[in-house]
């Protein structure tokens, strides 16, 4: 088990694995998002309360899920980097931050556009919305902190520390709709098999989630390859890798 774990620390292994995984992730992402869009926009029935406005869920929910998933990845990678001093974990953290920030921005913008017809306002200082906004600031803070250090190793460590401290916000976002009175609706797909959504609405949503997840995987692999090259550009293996 530990051999496998330490193999992950090898830059050539990470570089080659990321290259091999990218087209697979991208293919599944294209197929899932394509199906989710066609089914979700064209065939799923309108909601009995929200009409066709609910279709925003097909981009809003997956982007919100991915914002939390990417931040958790950022914090876990940072923790692995700090505890085991694995440089590639810092590369994963650096690669995931801008992707997660973009998904958070997407969740905030689509949520705001959904809120206007349903709540009568684009923005409210609601616990879910506010904690999601804090998540965006955390992403920006982590990226800025890393970039602020001249020594990349110190920047990596400082950013990892901030990411770990900020991970406390992830359960707050998730449970905010249960802990406080919130304009935001409760979890729709919290437990498999107990969803309040009918299958005709749920399947395109799950397809979009899978698509966004695989898209995240593909973009992460592409960014990670760049990150590895930046950090290892004076290593002998890079010469061989660049030839292929």
């Amino acid at each position, binding site marked *: 088990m530990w051999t496998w774990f330490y193999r992950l620390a090898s830059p050539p292994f990470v570089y080659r694995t990321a290259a091999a995984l990218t087209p697979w992730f991208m293919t599944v992402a294209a197929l899932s998002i394509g199906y989710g869009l066609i089914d979700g926009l064209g065939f799923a029935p309108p909601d009995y309360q929200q009409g066709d406005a609910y279709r925003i869920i097909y981009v809003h929910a997956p982007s919100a899920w991915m914002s939390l998933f990417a931040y958790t990845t950022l914090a876990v990678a940072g923790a692995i980097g700090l505890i085991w001093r694995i440089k590639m974990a810092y590369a994963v953290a650096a690669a995931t931050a801008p992707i997660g920030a973009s998904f958070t921005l997407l969740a905030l913008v689509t949520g705001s*556009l959904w809120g206007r017809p349903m709540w009568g306002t684009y923005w409210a200082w609601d616990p879910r919305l506010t904690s999601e906004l804090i998540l965006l600031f955390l992403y920006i803070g982590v990226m800025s902190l890393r970039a602020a250090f001249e020594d990349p190793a110190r920047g990596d460590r400082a950013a990892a520390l901030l990411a770990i401290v900020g991970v406390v916000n992830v359960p707050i976002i998730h449970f905010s709709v249960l802990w406080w009175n919130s304009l935001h609706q409760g979890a729709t797909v919290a437990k498999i098999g107990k969803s309040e959504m009918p299958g005709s609405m749920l399947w395109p949503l799950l397809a979009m989630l899978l698509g966004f997840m695989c898209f995240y995987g593909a*973009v992460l692999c592409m960014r990670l390859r760049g990150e590895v090259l930046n950090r290892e550009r004076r290593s002998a293996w890079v010469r061989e890798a660049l030839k292929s």
Partner: protein
Amino acid sequence: MNAGGFWSMGGYARYVWPCFGFACTVLAWNLWSARRYHAAARVRAQRAMAMMDE
């Protein structure tokens, strides 16, 4: 759903379509920036190799 109903989204078109448009923009930006980042890293690595050879 007919074509007219599809585009009007039951009167919510001005909220629904910008969401999907912005989502497309964010996904496209991610793809473009990741490709550019990798390409720039390759160029930097090639330069570093060339300097080491000199």
